[in-house]
């Protein structure tokens, strides 16, 4: 046995959701990400895509220039790697029949709207007759419980404003008349919803496991983003109603979450938070105990540092400007002062901590150079020593690549029957 085999044997793969069968019938990022997280945890996920065109997310960039058309979308790969892909049109009668047969052996059905199943005459009662323990999860933008008030058009950007998150992300500011509320970035809204939906799915699966019957669950983007507003909800609970965005002069930097400074360096910025007295003392010692640091009225106590934060910003910047981010970060942390560089995308891809922990998977579909993709943000080791895999080689599912396995091997159709269905556009 060689060393590599020995290591593989020593590290059995953990799959906490082994045996869970998931069907994903969706056209949205949150639903797709939810299913991918479950796949990462060991579930078997069958993604049903429209015949011919496949999931619309396959056509959203950025694209890997050397990858084959249809399998070149990086975001699609991120949302779907590890799943099986089969094509099926449930709106066709034969497709609906196959869809029902797949549900018979599924534990969880993920959709991206609550109405699609109703259009197939698959209300919750019908689904439970087909499979009593089936959990259905609709991952939506707006909860369908709201009979009124759902806007006719929205995007993740406008939804973040409607949910209140954008307003509070720009509160307080010194010039609210000029400083607009700011939304979330990248795909945060969709992906945060995907993680919340994965929780909902797991709750439903545990519920079915304990009580024997499946639940119909809905997880809406709007609810997920609003539920993140912990501090503002607390403020409301204490009676605040006006929610001015104007920053009061004496609020200092405490309003930014606990005495924080953004300091310029030779090559960017660091953010520091020497909030405790002992941390502050070690920080100014690192700066060489400059004269100003001995001025009690300026920075003797935390309240003084908060009131004089801007003067201190200027003084501290004189030192940090002479150093790189990495230098300040390492020296501050060595002195047990909370400090981190402000990262950009390249910094993250090259980040020593993320890479050492095997955080990035490597997507093999990108052509010559594998593309780094974030993996699960946690490791898990079971009592027997099995571990969730990290730093995986991942591939995105080729459209319909599981058709034979699903329709022939699993459902027992002949190759001729599948071919007939293909000609009719059902698969």
């Amino acid at each position: 046995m060689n060393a590599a085999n020995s290591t593989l044997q020593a590290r059995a793969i953990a799959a906490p959701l082994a045996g869970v069968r998931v069907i994903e019938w969706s056209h949205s990022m949150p639903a797709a990400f939810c299913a991918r997280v479950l796949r990462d945890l060991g579930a078997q996920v069958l993604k049903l895509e429209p015949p011919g065109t496949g999931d619309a997310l396959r056509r959203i960039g950025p694209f890997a220039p050397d990858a084959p058309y249809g399998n070149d979308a990086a975001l699609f790969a991120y949302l779907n790697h590890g799943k099986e892909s089969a094509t099926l049109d449930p709106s066709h009668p034969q497709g609906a029949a196959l869809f029902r047969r797949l549900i018979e052996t599924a534990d969880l059905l993920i959709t991206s709207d609550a109405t699609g199943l109703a259009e197939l005459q698959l209300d919750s009662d019908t689904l439970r007759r087909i499979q009593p323990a089936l959990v259905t999860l609709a991952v939506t933008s707006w909860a369908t419980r709201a009979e009124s008030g759902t806007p006719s058009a929205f995007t993740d950007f406008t939804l973040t404003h409607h949910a209140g998150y954008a307003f509070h992300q720009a509160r307080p500011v010194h010039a609210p008349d000029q400083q607009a509320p700011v939304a979330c970035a990248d795909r945060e809204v969709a992906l945060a919803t995907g993680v919340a939906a994965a929780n909902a799915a797991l709750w439903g699966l545990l519920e079915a496991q304990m009580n024997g019957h499946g639940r119909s669950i809905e997880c809406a983007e709007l609810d997920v983003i609003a539920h993140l507003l912990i501090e503002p909800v607390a403020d409301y609970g204490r009676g605040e109603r006006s929610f001015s965005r104007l920053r009061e002069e004496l609020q200092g930097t405490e309003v930014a979450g606990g005495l924080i400074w953004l300091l310029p360096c030779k090559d960017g910025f660091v953010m520091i938070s020497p909030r405790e007295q002992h941390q502050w003392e070690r920080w100014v010692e690192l700066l060489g105990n400059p004269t100003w640091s001995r001025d009690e009225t300026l920075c003797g106590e935390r309240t003084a540092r908060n009131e004089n934060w801007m003067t201190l910003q200027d003084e501290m910047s004189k030192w940090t400007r002479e150093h790189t981010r990495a230098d300040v970060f390492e020296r501050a942390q060595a002195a047990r002062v909370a400090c981190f560089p402000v990262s950009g995308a390249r910094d993250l891809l090259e980040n020593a901590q993320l890479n050492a922990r095997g955080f990035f998977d490597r997507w093999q579909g990108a052509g010559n150079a594998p593309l780094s993709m974030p993996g699960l943000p946690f490791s898990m080791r079971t009592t027997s020593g099995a571990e969730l895999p990290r730093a995986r080689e991942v591939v995105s599912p080729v459209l319909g690549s599981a058709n034979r396995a699903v329709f022939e091997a699993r459902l027992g159709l002949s190759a001729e029957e599948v071919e007939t269905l293909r000609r009719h556009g059902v698969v």
Partner: protein
Amino acid sequence: MTQKTLAGLRVVDFSWVLAGPMTTKMLAGMGAEIIKIESSTRREHTQRQPWWAVVNAGKKSCTINLSRPQGPELIRRLIAQSDMVVENFSNGVLAKFGLDYATLAKIRADLIFVSASGTGREGPQRDSLAYGSLLQAYSGRASVVGTLNERVEAMGILPAWTDPITALWESCAVLAAIRHRRVSGEGAYIDLSMLESTVALLPELLFREALGSETPTATGAREPDAAPSGCFRCAGDDAWLAVSVSDDRQWRALCDAMRKPELAADSRFADAVSRVTHRAAADDLLAAWLRVQPPARALDALQSRGVPAARSRHIGAVIEDPYFADGGLFPVLADGSRSIALPWRDSEGFRGDFAPPPRLGEHNDYVFGELLGLDAHEIETLTEAGVLR
């Protein structure tokens, strides 16, 4: 009668600040018994922040002084009859008290042990001192949400993002581990990184950098493939409207709403690509129109025509919106405190059951008497000796 999903699951909760407590609060909502380990000798436990009640509903609280020799021993006895430990101490703290996973797994082999930290328990930066706010900068989030500024304003530092996002990941890991335990009888050790929790939601930022894409990822200011797109000032006090036009139909509808039908034929705005190319001009036209519009009227004009638009609302307007008021996301608990329920709902309206948050040490008699079997005299003696404090 059906049982609550996590009924019978006892969690010893060392976590503090936001991510850990929010995780265990979600577990409490699903029926787990959460026992917070607190101490009246610790400022972070006695000086409860305003948000404390929001993230600690549905739990029990006991006070125990870890620095006294009997303290860790009592906790080990408690863990022997518990199912899970949740913690977010700095590296090495629990080991110092003999409460690390390696020690506890010998007491309870099927224990689920969740260890959350800023950068993870392994790796060259494992000992970094971290706060959620700083991790929002380290994760790259601050660089894309807003514009870096020395006032640290409107750049994704407040409100807390990394903490509640970490909580969603953490509870996800925990629920998977619980399912595995129910099937196999095995426990698990979970090492969760707040940094990774945040970066995992920023994939496009990384992909565009690695692939050399010239299109930026979405920022907090606008969507890159929509134009006009942004948050625009309306008439009135701090009134803002977010608008994002993604296709030709929406653009024509916007022109109609602005009563400028001639813009629909303007070649600069002929299609989505042209509008992105002339983004500044498109944004200026919309901004000039909205600047004198009452927000409610403008919103109605846009929404009725199918243009994506929304008021930028504060939490008061959100909580009082019938959508949320009827949906039960922000319940008022029995003690009058405002809370946050589970972010999903089932068809019967279940969003988690939440009792009011506990008073400090409220459940000492239950934990030390009922669970650990100490009699009243022993509890009194240990309290006077500063152990149960």
